[in-house]
Structures are given as C-alpha cells and as structure tokens.
C-alpha cells in the first residue's frame, strides 16, 4: 500500500516507481497479475487523491475503479519516463474532474457534501479519522488536494504543481498554510 508520507525517503518512492513501471510494461502485454501488484502499491494514493477532489467516498470509489480499468487498458500507451505515479494520478484527476462536471457542471467538488460517513473499519483509529474528516471538511479544494498528495504519494512539490495545474509557488504557499489550519482546527476541537 502506498503510504509515502514526507518521513519516508526518496529511495522508497523510487522503488515504488520502478515497480509500477515494471508492472505497466507487463500489463501492456496483458498480464493481470501485474495489475494486482500495481494496485497493491498504489490503491491508497489513488483513492485518497480521488477523495480529495470529490469529497464523497462513493464517488471516489467509482473513480478509483475506473482509474485501474483505464490504467490497464492504456498501459501500452504509457512511455516509461520514470514517473508512473504521476501518470496514474493524472488519470485519477481527469476522471474525477469529469465526474464533477457531469454531476454539477462545474469543477467544484460535489456540493457542500458532508464529511464522509465513518464507513471505515471499526478498528480505525479515531484520531486518524478525525484528521481525515477535518482535511475534507475545512481545507479549500487546492489545499486539500495538495496535502493529500503530499501525505500519500512520493510526489515532489513541483510534480504536485504539474498534476494540479497550479504554479509551484501556489502549491508551496497553500501547503504551508493548510497544515497549520488543520493543526489549529484539531486543537480547538480537542
């Protein structure tokens, strides 16, 4: 499962990228086992990013499913450039945004949908869930997507900027503003 927070090192990102690239090459030959491997090391990032755009677990789940089908059917068109994660997340972004358009005719997340219901497993740590709810509830669209990408993927700020089609400076300043916002909110909640 891909959970590369900032504490995890670049070597790990590199390994994941290498593995994904290898899987994509095999998927291009019709290897479904490679799809399973790719899924295993990217699913949290794919779901988390979709959720950060859509804010609705069900929609995020649908996009997640479509993403893997799209990745599999387009694996042959992937050109190995060492950035498979960015490619996969671009698909997530496009499918999620398409879905937003279809539903609301705009790029904004699905109405002011409430934070996701606690559908997660009963053992999920309450604090973790609270943090996720806060991220989905109080952060602006860009802030939410940036923080989620930073927490869940090995992408660097400049890659996040490219993915979200934002200037690098904007990504950096939003990232720096978002975390204290979350910290303060959680402090007050406590």
């Amino acid at each position, binding site marked *: *499962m891909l*959970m*590369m*927070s*900032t*504490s995890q*090192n*670049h*070597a790990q990102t590199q390994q994941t990228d290498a593995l994904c690239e290898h899987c994509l090459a095999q998927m291009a030959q019709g290897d*479904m086992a490679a799809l*399973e491997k790719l899924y295993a090391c990217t*699913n*949290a990032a794919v*779901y*988390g990013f979709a959720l950060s755009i859509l804010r609705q677990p069900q929609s995020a*789940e649908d996009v*997640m*499913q479509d*993403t*893997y*089908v*799209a990745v*599999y*059917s*387009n694996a042959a068109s*992937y*050109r190995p*450039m*060492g950035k498979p994660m960015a*490619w996969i997340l671009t698909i997530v972004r*496009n*499918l999620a945004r398409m879905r937003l358009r279809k539903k609301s005719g705009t790029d904004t997340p699905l109405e002011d949908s409430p934070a996701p219901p606690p*559908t*997660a497993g009963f053992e*999920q*740590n309450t*604090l*973790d*869930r609270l*943090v*996720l709810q806060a991220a989905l509830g109080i952060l602006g669209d860009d802030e939410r997507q940036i923080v*989620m990408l*930073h*927490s*869940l993927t090995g992408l*660097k*700020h*400049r890659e996040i900027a*490219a993915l979200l*089609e934002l*200037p*690098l*400076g904007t990504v*950096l*300043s939003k990232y*720096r503003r978002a975390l204290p916002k979350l*910290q303060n909110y*959680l*402090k007050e*909640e406590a």
Partner: protein
Amino acid sequence: MALSKHELQESLARAVAAQTPDVLPNVLRRVGAGDTVGVEAAPAQPNTLTFPLDAAPPQKRRRALRWVVSAAAVLVLLLGLYSGFSYVNGLDAIVSFDVNPSIELQVTRAEKVLAATALNAEADDILDGMNLENVDLDVAVNALIGSMLKHGYISANKNTILISVENNNAQKGAALQERLANEVGSILNSNAVDGAVLSQTLADDDRLRQLAGQYGISLGKAALVDLLVSQNPQLDFAAMAALSINDISLLLSSKQTALEGVAYSGQASSTAYIGEEKAEAVALAYAGVVRSNLVSIQTELDYEDGRMVYEVEFATTAAEYEYEIDAQTAAVLKQETEPVEHPAQTNDNSGVAAGPLTEDEAKAIALQHAGLQQADARFVKAVRYQKQGVWLYELIFMDSHSKYRYLVDTNTGNILDHYIYQLGGGASQPAEPPASTLPQPASDNPPAPASSSSTAPASASSTPAPAPENPAATPPAATGTISAEQAQAIAAGHSSVPAGEMRVLEIKLEKEDGVLVYDVEFTYGGTEYDYEIDAATGAILDWDMDEADDD
C-alpha cells in the same frame, strides 16, 4: 491535541489507507470482460491523456475539447519543468543551494523569487514558515543562509556550500554564479564561519536531471556527484548523493578529482575528521613500522560501508600494507599486509633495486606516449614504488580534456599500464592494451624478472599500443585498478585457455566485502570458468570450473 505537521500527515495517510475500499475484484472482472475506460494516449505525445469526444453530447463537445487542450497543457508544463524556462512568464534562472539541505529557487529576470522548493527533508526545516515568493533574490539568499546557520547545517565542521545556476544564457548564468558565490562567502564571513563555496553554471542535462530526481537532490549536486563518481568509479552515486557538500568536497580534493566547470573558494572543513597525518600515524603504529623505514606512503580519504575512512597504503622493502582507518574515530577497520617478492637476481640486500629511470625521464616517456607537451600537462601524482617485484613510477596528470594514469617500469622505461579518462562527462576511454603488463603472481608462469641488462629507458615509441578492436565490449579500467582486458588476460593465463578462443559470458567490476573485484566468467570446450580477480592487484582471489550449461 497538538500534532506536529509530520504526525498530521502520517495520521492522514493512515486514515485514508484504512478507508480505502477494495475495488480490485471489480476491476479484474471488468478488465477480464474487456471493459475499457475511454482514456487514450495521443501517440505523438507520450503520456498525454486525451478523453474521447464521442460520448459527449454536442453542447459538451467544447468542454471535451478543453480536456484535450488542458491535457496537452499539462504535458507542456511537465516537459517545461524538465527542459526549459520559457514556459513560465518571467522565469529566468534556477538557483540551487546545497549544503545538505537542498533548496531550489526559481528566479525572474528582475531577480525576484518566483518559488522556493525544498528538495529534501532537511530543506523542509530550512524553508519552514518562510515565504520567499516575490522576495528579492539577495534577501532570499540571506534568509536561507541565515536559516542554515541557525539550524546548524553550516558550521565550523561543515562549512561548504554549493551554488548552482541554471540559465539558458550561459554568460548571464556565470555572472549570477559569481555574484552569488561572493555574496554567500561574505554572509558566512560575517557570521564568523570560514566558509568554502563551490559554484557552477549548468545547462540542462536529461541524464543529470533524471539522477537528481531519482535521488532527491538538485541538478547542481547531481552534477558534482557525477564528477566525483565518474572519476572515481569505486564510489557509489547513491551513497555520495546522500553526503553533505562538505564531505563530497573533501573526497573531491583528497582524490584529486578534476573540478571542471566548478569554481572554488575557501577550503572544506576537515575538523570533523582525524586528518591524514593522524590516520598515517595510527596505521604505522598498528603495523609496527617506523616512518624512516618507509619506501612509500599514500593516504586518501574514502567512503566505505556508510562511513568516511582514510585509506593508508605504505610499503617498506619487506612488505606492502593497506590500512583503512575510520576518519572519525581512528579505529582500524581493515588491514592487509603482503610480503614483497624478491626476484632472484636482486643485487642489493635491501630488496629489489629500483631502476635507474628518474622521475623526469618517466614523465617524459608518459607524456610522449600521451602525445602531450610538458606545458600542457599538470601532474597531480608522481610516486615511485615497488609492486609485485617491479619498481615503477605511478604518474597521474591532466590536460584540459583528460586525466591520465601511467605506470612506468623504472628499469626498462616500459609503460606497464596506462589509462586515459575523458573529463567533462564524456565516456571513459578504455586504455589501450599495455605493451607489457605487471607480472601476475597468481599466474602459472612465474613473473618475468625485470631485465637487468636494459639500463637505458626504452623510448616510448618502442611500446606500440594497438587500438582496441572493440572498445565498447569491456568497461574501462578505473583509475587505480587493472582493466577488464587485463583481468581477462589473467584468467586466460591461469586457465591456459587462449583469450581469443574463450567465449566470455561476463566480465564485471563489482565490490565484494569492500574490495573491488572483477568477476570473469567464460566457457571453453564444454567447461565454464568463473574467476574473481582483485581489481587493484590483479591477484586471483577465487576461481571455479564446472561443466558448461548446454545452450
């Protein structure tokens, strides 16, 4: 509840991971049924995603078209990030600062900061809470260096900083480089740090860009590490990329690496380490050798198994010693002793006599062979020592394009080995086969004694060196190691298989237990041979033969 930023993100990652649904069975079912999702890659532009237009109702066509356009824009942005400057209005230069924190500033023509990027975790520390957007470059540099000093990344022990400027206009880049180097130098001075500043102007380079991305370092640091590793192939890029610029700088200077294109002021601090002199003293004391008995001694800073070490090599008339001393603790990490062989015709009871060749004569032979004039070459090393019963001069010199290493027999003036390394990122040039090689101790044939009758140095022209038939077939020898061809020849000699008739499966240079070895594998007459040859000495460390696999 006070969570740090780091804990916050970990918590978020855990929450998402716990909540991620398992859609794999559905995905596999859909894929198995031949379901596709309409995402197509435009063949002309790799990894550009376009979405099908046919599903969109007429009024949405324009929107769908926007997707194509915006996907293309993403590509342009992605490519732009990696290959140039013109895509962002006003971006004129990228300036990176590496100490161990690596920070990149995007700078406009008006020298305002467009964005500051932390390239590693240490740099996150430095940039934390700092908003440099639209700030004058000078002010930003002051703030960054100030923060590095405050956080202890620059100190008396670690005083070296690398400044790299990327600008499409090389002249402008060089001017900015010089100005920033001076400015950083004076900031360090005003903070009572006797700093060292390395600076360079870079053009974009895909290979280096990829390495930089791979190791989470700046393009500038990648270029510097590349310089070090390409001239000292025993060093590992990944390990070097993790070192501070101070340590890299110490290694560069200890290994006399040619710093092409890098300006240098001040001296990297070595106060964190014991120093060459103490390392030598420790090794000599451990070996029980007094300095006055030494024939030669050579000490070099190196990096082995995750730590900085001094490699101390010395010889007396009786033995050759190789020590590895921990550069921080002075602990003896490795020691090897090898008795010096004494050929029968020794006419001197102190050991083998050195030949009559003077250092200047040896240099002249090497220069003539290299086709260089004395004035064009800068000698960085000229030592005389005995190796496997032969007295030789080891000469290392450089001109503006290449680094040369020659071993010249002090008796005959023959060139025993030579190696030319092309500087400036070009491919290494394999050494031409030497006219005569060092006698190999592990060979079945005893080493030929140095000719005692030949007193006059042979002229360099008498040591013709035919060009290699297939230079790409074997990797070039690293400075200080034997070449792959020599390793093959040693294996051939030992196995009595003619080198021309063996089918070489693999000749590879690798590190085993900290020792560089050639692994030479070949087949001949239904037998497979596997040799492990010490790349420094040519000694056969291990060998094996087996029935060859049928293929």
